[in-house]
């Protein structure tokens, strides 16, 4: 019992709401005959009687008590939907599991059939079948399940395919387990739990279809479902009289409530919301850096371009806060290149994100400051921060090869960055973009290319050109060589080196790859588990690392010749 309760509590509010609605409707369907105050097929009052204490919802054109009709309508409405949904689920399971488990020709044929059925217009098809079979419970169940089995088969096939790929299934097959054993002991139970939400969502669609069919005259005339009530109300033009309030509104609202209840219970919300979960946080402005350190920054004659002071970033709120980085201190004088090294999860990308001001919504600066030319970046508002980004601070983001928008031309994406920060005409911005392409070593015709027409290295160059569009003081490159093959990596590193020489750039290069840094970084900061464990001049760090972790990193350098060369 307590486990059930715990399960209930773990459900999202929307699902709980859905289950409550569904439970209430099922109770209504079960106990309707006990609850209904009158016999729904007896004339108990005057036609079109308005609501009164004796007849809460008044009467229809014959004098039936509408509240009783409504309560007793729950049973036929739900019964047809449940029957049809169960039938459709059985067929869908059979087809989906056969296709997904047997694969090969069976899969091809079955899925081709499913595709065709999905392409046919549902309501006209069900009407063609329905008219021939004649109105009634059986017809409704038949045509609704015809309409619903195909999407379910497709969904279940996908799930079977993914279950098949699980390790223990592979192992069992390798041990020679038979088909029957595999299916009954492993595949069906695994897929079975996934069928339940499918079934619930099928009931949702079936309720709607039942109402539609009943409205169009294919309902079961012997039982008055909500769809039938509306059909009759429509025939008698109830909506043109005052009777619409108690004759038309309640059954439709109940159909809507039923559909919504099943949709929520089926986890429609969770299914569509699946993917990345974003924790709600409000960005807090951190306490400004202490007055003393600010004063120091202003009085020093050769102030460094960038100073990071005891930066601590956490993901999430309060007690649950995790990850990020802790107490990071960095100093970067103008014209120098800092390499930020660490394995994934060491906090190096968090630092880079904090530098440029593009942290994940869940992350927040718990303490510390980032100063650029003496200005504390963390106290700036979003608008001022954006003003710096792309103009004074350029970013070459991670996965730069897929960082270009696939639907815009490369040149336009560079020109966009120019136009955002400079008061230029479109033509001038294009000329500038052309210039930048030349600067990063791309041919002029790359301007009109779409990203998919460029190679990985070329796209990386376009991204670098974008970052340089407004002559930034600081360039932050997050893993600039990841995902590129070795020769291209070298080209990109050479490009960054030469750009640094020509433009006098100050750079922060984030990488997990120590050799990358050895070539162009003046200083190195090594991060581990959110802390900077060692920092100093590259030569010094490589030659005599103090920290054990750095020693391991340096010791694992694959190419000692390169290291010698640097020394």
């Amino acid at each position, binding site marked *: 019992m307590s486990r059930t309760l715990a399960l209930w509590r773990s459900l999202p509010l*929307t699902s709980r709401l859905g289950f409550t609605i569904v439970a209430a409707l099922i109770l209504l369907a079960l106990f309707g005959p006990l609850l209904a105050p009158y016999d729904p097929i007896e004339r108990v009052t005057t036609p079109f009687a308005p609501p009164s204490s004796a007849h809460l919802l008044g009467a229809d054109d014959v004098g039936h008590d509408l509240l009783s009709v409504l309560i007793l309508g729950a049973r036929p409405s739900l019964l047809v939907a449940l029957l049809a949904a169960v039938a459709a689920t059985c067929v869908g399971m059979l087809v989906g599991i056969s296709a997904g488990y047997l694969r090969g020709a069976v899969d091809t044929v079955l899925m081709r059939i499913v595709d*065709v059925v*999905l*392409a*046919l*217009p*549902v309501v*006209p*098809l069900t*009407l*063609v079948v329905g*008219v*021939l079979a004649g109105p009634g419970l059986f017809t409704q169940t038949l045509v609704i399940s015809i309409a619903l089995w195909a999407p379910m088969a497709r969904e279940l096939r996908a799930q079977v395919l993914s279950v098949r790929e699980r390790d223990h299934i592979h192992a069992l097959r390798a041990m020679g387990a038979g088909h029957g054993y595999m299916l009954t002991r492993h595949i069906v139970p695994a897929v079975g739990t996934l069928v339940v939400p499918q079934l619930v969502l099928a009931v*949702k669609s079936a309720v*709607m279809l039942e*109402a*539609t069919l009943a*409205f*169009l005259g*294919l309902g079961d005339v012997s039982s008055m479902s909500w*769809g039938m009530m*509306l059909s009759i*109300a*429509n025939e008698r033009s109830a*909506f*043109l009289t005052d009777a*619409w309030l108690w004759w*038309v509104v309640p059954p*439709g609202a109940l*159909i*809507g409530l039923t*559909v*919504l209840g099943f949709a929520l219970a089926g986890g429609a*919300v969770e299914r*569509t919301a699946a*993917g990345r979960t*974003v924790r*709600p946080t409000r960005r807090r402005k951190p306490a400004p850096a202490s007055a003393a350190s600010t004063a120091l920054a202003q009085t020093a004659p050769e102030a460094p371009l960038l100073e990071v002071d005891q930066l601590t970033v956490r993901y999430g709120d309060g007690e649950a806060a995790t990850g990020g980085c802790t107490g990071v201190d960095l100093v970067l004088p103008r014209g120098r290149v800092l390499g930020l090294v660490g394995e994934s999860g060491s906090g190096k990308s968090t630092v880079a994100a904090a530098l*440029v001001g*593009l942290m994940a*919504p*869940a992350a927040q600066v718990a303490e510390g400051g980032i100063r650029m030319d003496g200005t504390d970046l963390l106290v700036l508002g979003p608008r001022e921060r*954006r003003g710096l980004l*792309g*103009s004074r601070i350029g970013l070459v*983001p991670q996965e730069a090869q897929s*960082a270009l*928008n*696939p*639907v815009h031309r490369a040149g336009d994406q560079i020109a*966009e960055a120019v136009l955002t920060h400079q008061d230029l005409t479109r033509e001038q911005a294009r000329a500038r973009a052309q210039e930048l392409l030349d600067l990063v070593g791309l041919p002029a015709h790359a301007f009109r*290319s*779409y990203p*998919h*027409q*460029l190679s990985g290295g*070329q796209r990386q160059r376009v*991204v670098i050109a*974008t970052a340089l*569009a407004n002559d930034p003081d600081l360039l932050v490159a997050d893993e600039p060589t990841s995902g590129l093959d070795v020769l291209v990596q070298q080209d990109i590193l050479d490009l960054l080196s030469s750009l640094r020489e020509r433009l006098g750039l100050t750079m922060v290069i984030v990488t997990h790859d120590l050799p990358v840094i050895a070539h162009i970084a003046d200083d190195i900061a090594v991060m581990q588990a959110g802390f900077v464990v060692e920092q100093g001049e590259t030569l010094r760090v490589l030659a005599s690392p103090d920290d054990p972790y750095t020693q391991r990193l340096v010791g694992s350098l694959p190419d000692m010749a390169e290291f010698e060369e640097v020394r």
Partner: protein
Amino acid sequence: MRQAGRSWLPRLGQYALVLWVAVTLNFAIPRLAPGNPALIMHTGEGDPTPEELAELGEIYGLNEPVLVQYGRFWLDLLRGDLGLSTDHNRPVTDVLLERLPWSLVLVGLGLIGAIIIGTLIGAWSAWRREAGRPSQDKGTLVGVLAIDSMPGFWVGMLLIAVFSAQLGWFPSYASAQMPEGTLAGIAESGRRLAMPLATMIITSFGTYYMLARASMTTVLGEPFIRLARAKGLPERTVAIRHALRTALLPIATNAAIAAGSLVSGAVVVETVFSYPGLGKVIADAVAVRDYPLLQGAFLLATLGVIAANILVDLLYPLLDPRVRHSREELPV
């Protein structure tokens, strides 16, 4: 979800297959149904005598081998002969073609309206979620689900009750008799179209909301959104020029698939508003069991869905340069 770069030949094959299945179903269903298929074709009052049935069987060739009947069925179809409507006593093709323009206007405008409204709200919803305001997103989602749960005919009846019967702003019907094609005539037809169109949009934009929200959520996680932000672009520009523009691609590929449900929506909406389109013809045919007419309407609806898919196939390259330029790779 469809693959964007799929070549056109298998796609045409798929459409041909769908069409063939629809035609064959039309042929097979009355012959598989219990009872004499000739009974279905009977137009007169009361039960037909055995002689009448035999005569009908002769006319429709029901006594010949099935394959011969099937061949004849196709030949008639290719000549545009869908048989005789038992209710209208006219060729089915004539009845359908007469009503087709009405439905095209309603379904076409409804589709455009539903796509625009659904996409904008869906994209906004995903955007708020990404911006760390998931409660706004979830509230919108539940609201749209609730609207999507209302039966289309019920929405139509409520609109009539409120805006026609109570307020008297719009007519409750849209009869075939139109004023002359003057400016006043156009205004009047707009007034008549308003409520059916609103019903179509209200009951079908939820599908596009879901599509847009899912697509936008995926796109917002892409690295190019981060690059767009790294340029210092205003959030609005990031949202529209980069996120929404790219999110349109999967929305477009799935929009045509959802078009089939719009045809179905038209059946109930046209019935409620007595709108003289195909949907009303279908509903009337159900009421009087006019089977040939229903068959023809089913075939036409299938053709409509296929046409919508082909239209999207043709327009898709305008949206996605990767498809447009797949043949002209630049030298590396």
